[in-house]
């Protein structure tokens, strides 16, 4: 036994060392998957539930760029204020933040929820034009309440490619990567 002790020890250490990258990759895939990320805190707890569900506003009523351009765009504060100047905000802390930001002329620094890498270019307009609904990728945002919007779909390259293949879209690298 004593004779093989060093060999066994060496093998055990090597196994552990080699297992680290495997474990790291697995951890990245399972625990760091975009859909399992916790909800990001936003500077203002914006209730999509109130706007999109209770009020019944269309997504593109505020995210206007989605129909015409690559970015869905977040509306300017002026756009929020076109309704909110007549809606009482006193005593409602989240709305007070909005009005204060508007009065100071400071834009709200929203946190991006759906992060695509820089080398992937997604164009909202063509996808909506093809007939997709916002909820196909973003899930039922209208039902996501106070905690904030959460990413529900993986949105990694395999996800994009599967959908492109199913719908007969081009799968050329240069369709998205340029």
């Amino acid at each position, binding site marked *: 036994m004593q004779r093989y002790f060093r060999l066994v020890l060496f093998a055990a250490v090597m196994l552990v060392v080699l297992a680290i990258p495997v474990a790291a990759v697995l951890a990245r895939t399972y625990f760091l998957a975009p859909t399992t990320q916790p909800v990001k805190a936003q500077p203002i707890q914006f209730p999509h539930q109130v706007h999109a569900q209770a009020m019944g506003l269309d997504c593109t009523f505020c995210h206007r760029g989605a129909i*015409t351009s*690559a970015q869905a765009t977040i509306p300017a504060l002026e756009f929020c204020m076109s309704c909110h100047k007549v809606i009482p905000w006193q005593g409602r802390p989240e709305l007070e933040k909005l009005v204060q930001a508007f009065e100071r002329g400071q834009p709200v620094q929203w946190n991006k929820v759906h992060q695509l*890498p*820089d*080398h*992937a*270019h997604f*164009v909202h*307009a*063509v996808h909506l*034009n093809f007939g997709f609904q916002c909820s196909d990728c973003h899930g039922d945002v209208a039902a996501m309440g106070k905690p904030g919007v959460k990413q529900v779909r993986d949105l990694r390259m395999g996800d994009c490619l599967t959908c492109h293949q199913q719908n007969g879209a*081009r799968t*050329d*690298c*240069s*369709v998205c*990567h*340029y």
Partner: protein
Amino acid sequence: MPRWGMVIDLDRCIGCGACVVACQAENNVPINTEDVYHQRRAIEWIRLERYWEGEYPDIKARYIPVPCMHCQNAPCEPVCPVYATYHTSEGINMQVYNRCIGTRYCSINCQWHVRFFNFWEPKWPDSLKNQLNPNVTVRSRGVMEKCTFCIQRIVKAEHQAKLEGRQLRADEFTTACAQACPTDAIVFGDLDNPESRVARLVSTAVNERGYRLLEDLGTEPSVYYLKKVDLEAPVEEHSSH
């Protein structure tokens, strides 16, 4: 399906370098400093080659803007071990940055020296931080990059046509170099669309004084050049080939 190509009229080119600057601005090409040139690692997706013709005092400066030739039979493509460079269905030789592992075989195989390697993380002076084009990836250290025929503009125009439910019109958009050219020497467009300026040039002027750089290598470049018309030049023996 369009087939993109370019015609560069050397008779019109005055060597101002506007195309080079426009390309750098459009495609987030890092600023080349002096020491970068000394190391021969400057990145210029389109460069201006200057050469002299004649002896002083009868000397003339000649210029050739050299972008990627987008060869239909590109020597850079088969040597890539990871298929990071490939040919699109629209005749563009594309570089997929996220796939590239930086072997640099492609740049060795390119006879025109129009492929560039990022030896460092690209840096811009603080005053230029906000001028980066959001539609173009900023290439990181360790990947090749090259002229893309401004594919971001192509994609944008194609998407716009799709949204409006129509076909792409001839000369609806152009590349940054062609747009910036003050003498209109660079013409970009769809070679397969008979209405486009580039196709008309290929069917007329290219027959008279057209050539392609290193054409005899048989790589079928998509960039055509039109010879300089020099009225003072001595009459050459007509060379047949």
